[in-house]
């Protein structure tokens, strides 16, 4: 662990709890995300992975504990404040500006960080940086030929790609991806992994993922969340070998995946 701490922690969760009524979803999570790493968050259904994402991105606020982004407390910050500090997230269920075109979605995502803000005295076409970044991201996510198609009319895989595009077009250097390959076919998943690898180069990535191929192929570090607690955190190999993880997953779908390798290969 000391080797990893040589690089700065970008996002730090300390003693984070979240309850809905009497139900405790997150129970004392401590987690450091290191500058430039690709960090996968895994765990069985209902472990609280999405809730943890919601806490990190300001969609929800913790019941107790603190969250800091580059040393600045963001525990009670609004989503937009956190986004402006350089943290962007995607959603598990596609969450786009559905009546706007792919390109317009990306321009909206690029606007704030490039200083367009609430500008109403200049046309957006006249802002070269915004258009350049939207164009670059459009190319990067492979939607150049679907530029002027409304988000709602894109195919599912295209919408997922745009979802990632909107997230990275914010220009943030901490990227949270919530199940980016959910519902994708094998080949679509491979394309998505390549895409994620490409567009998160040089940034810090945290992703919730169920597909163990994706996790072990992409992540530098893996944290395992079970019933609201992080039970293990380490390199993919270490997680694979971890007895606690094996035990926690025994008999579950993930257990078989961890034990026997590629999950999707079995399904097909």
């Amino acid at each position, binding site marked *: 662990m000391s080797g990893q701490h040589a690089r700065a922690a970008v996002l730090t969760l300390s003693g984070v709890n979240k309850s809905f009524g009497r139900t405790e979803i997150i129970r004392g999570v401590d987690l450091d995300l290191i500058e430039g790493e690709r960090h996968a968050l895994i765990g069985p259904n209902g472990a609280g992975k999405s809730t943890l994402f919601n806490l990190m*991105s300001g*969609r929800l606020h913790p019941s107790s504990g603190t969250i800091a982004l580059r040393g600045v407390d963001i525990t009670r910050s*609004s*989503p*937009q404040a956190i*986004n*402006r500090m350089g943290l*962007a*997230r995607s*959603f598990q269920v596609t*969450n*786009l*500006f*559905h*009546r*706007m075109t792919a390109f*317009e*979605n990306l*321009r*909206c*995502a690029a*606007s*704030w*960080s490039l200083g*367009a*803000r*609430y*500008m*109403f*005295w*200049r*046309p*957006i*076409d006249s*802002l070269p940086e*915004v258009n350049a970044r939207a164009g670059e991201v459009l190319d990067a996510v492979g939607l150049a*030929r679907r530029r002027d198609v409304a988000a709602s009319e894109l195919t599912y895989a295209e919408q997922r790609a745009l979802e990632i595009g*909107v997230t990275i*077009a*914010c220009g943030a250097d901490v990227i949270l991806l919530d199940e980016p390959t959910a519902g994708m076919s094998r080949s679509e998943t491979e394309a998505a992994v390549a895409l994620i690898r490409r567009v998160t180069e040089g940034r810090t990535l945290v992703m919730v993922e169920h597909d163990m191929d994706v996790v072990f192929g992409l992540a530098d570090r893996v944290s395992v969340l079970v019933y609201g607690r992080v039970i293990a955190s380490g390199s993919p190999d270490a997680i694979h070998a971890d007895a606690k993880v094996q035990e926690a997953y025994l008999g579950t779908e993930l257990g078989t995946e961890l034990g026997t390798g590629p999950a999707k290969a079995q399904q097909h």
Partner: protein
Amino acid sequence: MSGADVANGAIAKQAAAAAANGSALWAGLAGIAALIALPFVFPQGFALSLMCQMGIATIFALSYNMLLGQTGLLSFGHAVYFGLGAFCAIHLMRWTGSARTGGAWTIVVLPLIGGLGGLAAGLILGGVTTRRAGTIFAMISLGVGEMVASIAPMFPALFGGEAGISANRVFGAPLFGITFGPQRQVYYLIVGWAIVAALGMRALTKTPLGRMANAVRDNPERAQFVGYNPQRVRFLMLTLSGFFAGIAGGLSAVNYEIVTGETLGAQTSALVLLMAFIGGIGQFYGPIIGAVLVTFLQTALSQYTHAWLFYFGLFFLFMVLKAPGGIASLVELHRDPWRLGLTRWIWPQYGAVLIPALATVAGLIGLVELVYRIAGGVDAGETSWRLFGHAVVATSWVPWATAIVLLVAGGWLLAKTWSGVLCQWKTVLRATARGDAGETRK
């Protein structure tokens, strides 16, 4: 598709866009020329004042659609900004008139003062109303609207009580010989402001704020996660919308030389909603169509029949049920087939529908008018009137039978022929889709 094909496609697209821009410019110039020529074509006082009203309504309806169509905010209180702008303008008009300062040039800039009044109202009230979107916004806008309208009678010095505030627009020195006394000069003032305001609102849709308004309309939550505060976007859009509504209000002060407390009320708010909706909130130009049409119906129809509000309600109901995207959506539906020359396939079907549709409408109108005549309401006693030179007697069975036959037979034929229209439309749309595919393949 090879890279060269894509590049060719891009060039073709640019050329098409340039051509579209060029033709849009010509269409715009032609439109302006038509607006300048209109008072010579319709020089009658009635037509002129109707056109003035249409111009004012156009600005007002466009400003309303900045909220409904562009930001997704259904407002029931937009009259507040129109009305407060109008009051600002009329007070200034009174003051400059009595102080013997200024002259015709103050009338030219007066709508701007109205706009600033609307803007100020937006700044003050917008913070409360735009806190939430959706149903909550609609309810708050209704509440704020009623509140402002009910405050008006309590301050007769500001709002003039029941009589309203009146002023004279002709005072001081003329500007290049223009006094704004004749209605025609006011018409040109309104046209000028309407063009400026419409271009301004159109330009606003293409700014970062305008785009984010669409984004907040579509998905306020995601807007937060790309760094925007949806409340702030709504607030700014409402304030700017208040500005343009205030310009319309200022023009109405100049046009009528009187502003009453009713201007602030729910009826004005409802009317502008109907204009925007009937015209179509999905297209920028939709509310213009709605404003012109509704103003025409409201003014012209009421000259002919006391039942005009009933017809207007029927028309609105018909639009909501049959064309919820408004008239603009029907225009858009025809756009691609027209470009591909496919609309000629549908003309015969439209022609077949025309006669039954007219018969049905005539039968319906006949029945409504007859009922109005014998019901003993506003037209009590007027049981006979003249139609195309023939006497119609509501107490005899002849007009009733005629109306019923027209309605039933027309309706039956309409149902028959309408299915032909729908069927043919499917063919046209399929061909349109194919035509598009064929074009991109080139």
